[in-house]
């Protein structure tokens, strides 16, 4: 092992280029994984992290919150189902939100204060009355912060931010949660010619000790056009989520394949270049396993170094990245990517190790022949 580390220290010029290439690839893989994870969170965080155990949509919506409409009678019917602790209407609509004179698309959610689906906060307090709202910390950079006033465009309604949530965005746009009556008032103002404003879905809490699956099944037995899902399952099935998740997973796997190719090629070339030296070492009694250990040590050191530098670079990038380039970095993500990169890199050195073990020490006696 010390042999491998010493060579790394004494020949930095030889290993620096491959270290840099592997670092860039590890950065790419970290970005794939980080962007993919953040994209999914931005798409479905409000659903995945819902405080409700179960969310109920209309059957025709096919799992699309935008397309779902339920009735007040549906809410009452679900509340009476055995095993349901509480049920409340939830509204979602895309509106224009004006903050600091800038108009942006906003996902406006309406929840019953204290009822199922009320978001958990990281700062401030929940909205209790008309004119109050909570927003996500991810949108602070856009001006959606405690005390900010958000004007709902073309409705005459303005709400003030009184609390902050975390990881609770929807459809990759700023997400503002207000009381359900406030949401009804906004929708009524947008569709002034409509008769009634209907909830988008129903948030349900299971009764004490009642399994969520039992509640889902019981609601499914109702003779209504309703579909119940545990919140995480509904979040995973939202339109676009599977595509984004699968796309970034494919990119991550191909990125790891590239790490494997670069490491494999480099160490095979290096082994070929050092053939004479390695033969001499074998001839003077250095066992093949020691040389193998030295090579693996170099691979592990390079990948760990690349992961360390890559982790720092991506963490800095995540901190300064503009909102239009969502990027996430966490110790868990770094550990996972590092472990995967180490595994593929070590496997990729099989060719170099085989070549190294095939060295015949006797060749040293006929060197140059």
């Amino acid at each position, binding site marked *: 092992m010390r042999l491998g580390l010493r060579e790394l220290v004494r020949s930095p010029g030889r290993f620096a280029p491959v270290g840099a290439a592997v670092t860039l690839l590890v950065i790419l893989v970290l970005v794939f994984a980080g962007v993919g994870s953040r994209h999914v969170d931005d798409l479905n965080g409000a659903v995945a992290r819902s405080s409700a155990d179960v969310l109920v949509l209309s059957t025709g919506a096919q799992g699309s919150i935008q397309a779902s409409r339920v009735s007040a009678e549906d809410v009452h019917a679900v509340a009476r189902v055995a095993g349901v602790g509480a049920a409340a209407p939830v509204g979602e609509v895309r509106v224009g939100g004006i903050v600091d004179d800038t108009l942006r698309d906003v996902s406006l959610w309406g929840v019953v204060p204290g009822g199922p689906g009320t978001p958990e906060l990281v700062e401030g307090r929940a909205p209790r009355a008309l004119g109050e709202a909570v927003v996500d910390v991810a949108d602070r950079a856009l001006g959606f912060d405690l005390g900010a006033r958000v004007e709902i465009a073309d409705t005459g309604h303005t709400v003030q931010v009184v609390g902050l949530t975390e990881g609770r965005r929807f459809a990759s746009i700023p997400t503002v949660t207000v009381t359900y009556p406030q949401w009804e008032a906004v929708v009524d103002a*947008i569709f002034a010619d409509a008769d009634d404003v209907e909830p988008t879905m129903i948030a349900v809490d299971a009764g004490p000790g009642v399994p969520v699956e039992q509640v889902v099944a019981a609601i499914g037995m109702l003779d209504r056009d309703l579909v119940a899902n545990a919140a995480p399952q509904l979040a995973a099935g939202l339109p676009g989520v599977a595509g984004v998740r699968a796309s970034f997973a494919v990119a991550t796997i191909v990125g790891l394949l590239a790490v*494997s190719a670069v490491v494999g090629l480099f160490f095979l070339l290096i082994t*070929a270049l050092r053939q004479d030296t390695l033969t001499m070492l074998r001839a003077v009694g250095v066992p093949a396993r020691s040389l193998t250990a030295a090579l693996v040590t170099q691979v592990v050191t390079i990948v760990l170094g690349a992961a360390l530098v890559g982790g720092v670079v991506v963490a800095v990038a995540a901190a300064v990245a503009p909102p239009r380039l969502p990027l996430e970095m966490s110790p868990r993500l770094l550990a996972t990517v590092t472990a995967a990169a180490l595994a593929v890199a070590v496997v990729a050195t099989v060719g170099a190790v085989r070549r190294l073990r095939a060295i015949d020490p006797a060749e040293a006696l006929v060197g140059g022949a």
Partner: protein
Amino acid sequence: MIAVAARIAGAELRRALGRSVLSALTLSALMFLTLTLAGLADTLDRGSTGVLRTLDADLVIFNQEARQQLLRSRIPRPMTIGLPFVDGVHSVGTIGLVPTSARMPAGDVRVTLVGFSARTPAEPTRVVEGRLPVDGEPRIAALDVSLKAQGVRLGDTIVLGGDREVEVVGFVEDARFLQQPTVWVPPDVWALVRARVAPEAGYAEQLVGAGVVRVFPGADPGEVAAAIEAELDGVEVVTLEDAITSIPGVDVQRGTFTVLVAVSIAVVSFVVGLLSVLEVTERRRQLAILRAVGAPRRVVRGALIARSMLLWAVALVGGSVATWLLARVAPDAAPLGLRWPVLAVVGGGLLVATVIGTAVALGRVSRIDPATAMQVGQA
């Protein structure tokens, strides 16, 4: 001179075949990564924007409150009647979108229902089978061709929005919206389904989503857009490309994948540089001998460039084949495809990266002193 350099490069690659194959495989893996990213970006983008790209239109008219969002836009159809009299306007149509479900032979699927006015710029242009519905046909639809996977064929009846039966008379391709297949129906069918799935919007046959305009050849779309905005109150008129960019997620997706593809191309450049420098370092003595026997510097440099170009060509073919195969076996959820225009653009980018990477080693070649060949025992 070029022929000599190419012959030297070819001979080097043949004589060190194992190493050449390894180098080509490594570059293939990196190009595979770049092409996969570009393919994912292109397919995701097309899956989100097809509904607008399929139109033969230049401008899209939204109501101002919709802020260029197709799903939210609502304009009164009568508003568009006078538009053909605006200078530069060739023809006008209307289009409306609403997310809903469709019952197919294989079960219920999520779709985006598109109401469009026939024989106008609002018609999808890529009809691959059958025909499009025309205005006034009460229970007729054309489907995105990807819905064939649900077992639906021409002449079948499907159910929209839970209760509206329509007969399938045609299939269109590359017309998806936000990754969902589209179902194209006459405006009155769309209005009925919308009234059921979005009751707060009410039933209003004359209230459509957005207007689409084709301008006369030679007319400036920007000027026509301004003329329309001056003519109509409360509307925003944008070019088709701007409307496409305004589709939710498109802008972010394009920005993200552009950065990722650029970084992976940079990695290719870096690895080509690494391979070239290793090559020059290892063959320093042979290159010095070549210079000592009178080979001009240009030939030696040309041989290195030719070698890199050959590797680029082989690796691009390898990367393309790997991406094409991955697209065949990838799960349906991962929208991966590789089109010729994407291959051409990314291949060009990778060529530039290869040239830049090789340039790093060219400096070392230039510094090789022919006298080195005289030094006994030094490589």
